[in-house]
C-alpha cells in the first residue's frame, strides 16, 4: 500500500502529539494538578494513529479508559482535553467526565469508557445506525486484551457479525489486564483467532508498526464501508507506563520493559521516514517544537479556565425537551 507523504507526516505528527500530550499529563498528575485516575497510552500510539488515519470525521469510535490517544487521533482538541483532565468547566465534558469519559460526539467520539468492555455493544449500535441510514460511515471499537474476555465483547461482535454491520473491533493487546498477563487470562495466543467464532476476518498486527496497523485497518475499514461486515484487528503492543499513573509495576520485569521500549513505535517510524527521505532532523525538530507549543497552550488554557460552579452539578442529567 503506498501512502502519500502528507499522510505519513500526519501519522508521525499524530503519534508524537499523543506522546508529548501524555508526557505532560504524567508530569501534571505527579504534581497533583490532574485529579483522579490517569491511564496513559504511551507506547501504543501507532494503533490509534494507524486506524484513525482512515476515518472520516463522521465515522464513530468508542474508546477505553486508556483513551487519550484515540481522541487525539480522531481530531480531539488538546485544549478541551486538557481542561477536562483538570476538571475545568471549559473541558470537553464541562468537568463532569474526566480522563475516563472524554467524548466529542460531533467528531464521532462516543466516549472513553470507565468500564472494561463497555464499548463493543455501543460501537455495534453506532454501526447499526450507519447501515440503517446508508451513510457509508463505520464504527471503530477500541478495546484491550482484557476486554476481549468480557461477555459484552462476544455479544457486540456477534451481533455486528450476524447483522453484517460496518464495525471494526481493534484489540490493543498490551499483554496485561492491569497485572494479569495475557497468558493467564486466555488460552489463545492471538486474540484475532477469536474472529473465527464470528466468521469474520481476524488480523494480527505488530501494533508498534504504524504502517502495519494502517494497512490492516485500511482493509478492514474498506470491507466495512463496502458492506462486507465487521473485522477484528489485534495489535500487539505494550504500554510503557503502568496500568495507571502510580502503578508500581511489580508484575513485569524491567528487562521486558526495555525490550519493548527498544521497539518504540515513534522512534521506529521516525527512522523509517528519515530513510525514506520524508523526514529530516530539522523537520522533526520543527514538528516537535510545534507540538510542544500546542501542549503548553493546552496546559495554559486548562490552568486559566474557571472551575465549574457547584450548581452545575445538577445540570445535564436529562435532556429537556425544547
Amino acid at each position, binding site marked *: 500500500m503506498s501512502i502519500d507523504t502528507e499522510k505519513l507526516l500526519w501519522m508521525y505528527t499524530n503519534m508524537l502529539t499523543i506522546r508529548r500530550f501524555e508526557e505532560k499529563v504524567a508530569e501534571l498528575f505527579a504534581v497533583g494538578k490532574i485529579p483522579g485516575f490517569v491511564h496513559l497510552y504511551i507506547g501504543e500510539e501507532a494503533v490509534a494513529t494507524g486506524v484513525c488515519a482512515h476515518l472520516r470525521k463522521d465515522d464513530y469510535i468508542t474508546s477505553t479508559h486508556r483513551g487519550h490517544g484515540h481522541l487525539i487521533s480522531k481530531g480531539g482538541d488538546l485544549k478541551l482535553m486538557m481542561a477536562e483532565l483538570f476538571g475545568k468547566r471549559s473541558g470537553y465534558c*464541562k468537568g*463532569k467526565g474526566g480522563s475516563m469519559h472524554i467524548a466529542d460526539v460531533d467528531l464521532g467520539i462516543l466516549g472513553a469508557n470507565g468500564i472494561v468492555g463497555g464499548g463493543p*455493544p455501543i460501537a455495534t449500535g453506532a454501526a447499526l445506525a450507519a447501515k440503517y441510514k446508508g451513510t457509508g460511515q463505520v464504527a471503530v471499537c477500541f478495546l484491550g486484551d482484557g476486554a476481549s474476555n468480557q461477555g459484552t465483547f462476544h455479544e457486540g461482535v456477534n451481533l455486528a457479525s450476524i447483522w453484517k454491520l460496518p464495525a471494526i473491533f481493534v484489540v490493543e493487546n498490551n499483554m496485561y489486564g492491569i497485572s494479569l498477563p495475557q497468558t493467564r487470562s486466555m488460552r489463545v495466543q492471538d486474540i484475532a483467532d477469536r474472529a473465527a467464532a464470528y466468521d469474520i476476518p481476524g488480523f494480527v498486527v505488530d501494533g508498534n508498526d504504524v504502517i502495519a496497523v494502517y494497512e490492516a485497518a485500511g482493509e478492514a475499514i474498506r470491507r466495512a464501508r463496502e458492506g462486507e461486515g465487521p473485522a477484528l484487528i489485534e495489535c500487539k503492543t505494550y504500554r510503557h507506563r503502568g496500568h495507571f499513573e502510580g502503578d508500581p509495576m511489580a508484575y513485569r520485569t524491567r528487562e521486558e520493559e526495555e525490550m519493548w521500549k527498544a521497539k518504540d513505535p515513534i522512534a521506529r517510524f521516525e527512522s523509517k521516514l528519515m530513510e525514506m527521505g520524508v523526514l529530516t532532523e530539522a523537520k522533526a525538530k520543527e514538528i516537535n517544537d510545534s507540538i510542544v507549543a500546542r501542549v503548553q497552550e493546552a496546559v495554559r488554557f486548562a490552568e486559566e479556565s474557571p472551575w465549574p460552579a457547584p450548581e452545575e452539578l445538577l445540570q445535564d442529567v436529562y435532556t429537556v425537551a425544547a
Partner: protein
Amino acid sequence: MRTLTFAQALNEALKQEMRRDPTIYVAGEDVGVYGGIFGVTAGLLGEFGEDRVRDTPITESAIIGSAVGAAAAGLRPVVELMFIDFIGVALDQLYNQAAKIKYMFGGKARLPIVLRTTCGAGMCAAAQHSQSLEAWMMHIPGLKVVVPSTPYDAKGLLITAIRDDNPVVFIEHKMLYGTEGEVPEEPYTIPFGQADIKREGTDVTVVATMAMVHKALSAAEELAREGVSVEVVDPRTLTPLDMETIINSVKKTRRLVVVHEAVKHGGAGGEIVASVAEEAFDYLDAPPKRVAAPFTPVPFSPVLEQAFIPSVEKIVAAVKEVVA
C-alpha cells in the same frame, strides 16, 4: 369509545409512532415473526420490515448497548427486554452507559432510547421471571421509569417515551396485558411526572402502581361499602415522580397507604412515604403504611405466589388500620 387490551394499546402506539418517524426501530428477542412473547410487537415486522423490526439473539447486553450506540448516532431505538429479571446480565449497558453518558459527556449526547420490559408475578413463572425491579431503575439518575396500569395510560405513556430524548425504562406488568380499557384511536401523549387520580376519595390516600392500581381500586370499592372513602393515586411514572399530586392528596385525606408488588424493603414505597414525611408530616393523622411483597424471592407454587403478591384483603386491612 372502543376498547383495547393493554397489549393492543402498546402495539398501536408502536405502529403509529413508527409510521410517523422512520428513525424509530424495534429490536429484541422474538419481536419479529413471533410478535413478542406477549404479543406487543405483533404485526410490526409485516408492516415495517426487517430493518426496522429486528429479531436479536439472546444477547441482552448487546440489545441495550446497541441501542445506546444507535441512539447516539441519531436513531430512536425501542428495544425489548423480555423480562426485567434479565436486566442483571445487561445492567452495565443500562446504568453505566445509557443513563450516564449524557452527564459524563457534559450534556452533549442525546440518547432517545425506550427499553420496554415486563415485570410482575402471577403466572407461576417463579423467581427469575416474576420480579418487580422498578426501584432499582428509579435509583439511577439519568433514567426515566414508567409504570403504566391501564391501556389508556400504556398507549399515551409509550408515545411520550418514544418521543423523549432520554433513556426510558418502560415497565409492563405481565398480568395487565389482557386487561381492557377505552383507548382513543388517534396518537396522544401523557406527560411524565403527572400522577393520575384513579378514584377520588376523602378519608385515605392509596398510592399504587401497575397491577396494584386495580387491587387498590377493588379495595376502595369494598371499603366504600363500609363508609371509608379512598382516593387512589397512580403515579404512572416513578422518575420523574409527581410528589405534588400525592402530597396534595395526603393533605386532603391526612392518611397514606402505599401499595406495590415489589418487595417492601428498599422499594418505591419507602421513597414515597419518606417524601410525604419530609413535606407533609404535620398533615398526617396516622403513621403511613406500606403494603408490598415480603422480602423473599418470588416463589413458584400458586399457593405461595398468591401469598407473595399483595392482595385486596391486605390493602383493605392496611386502610382500616390507618383510618382507625
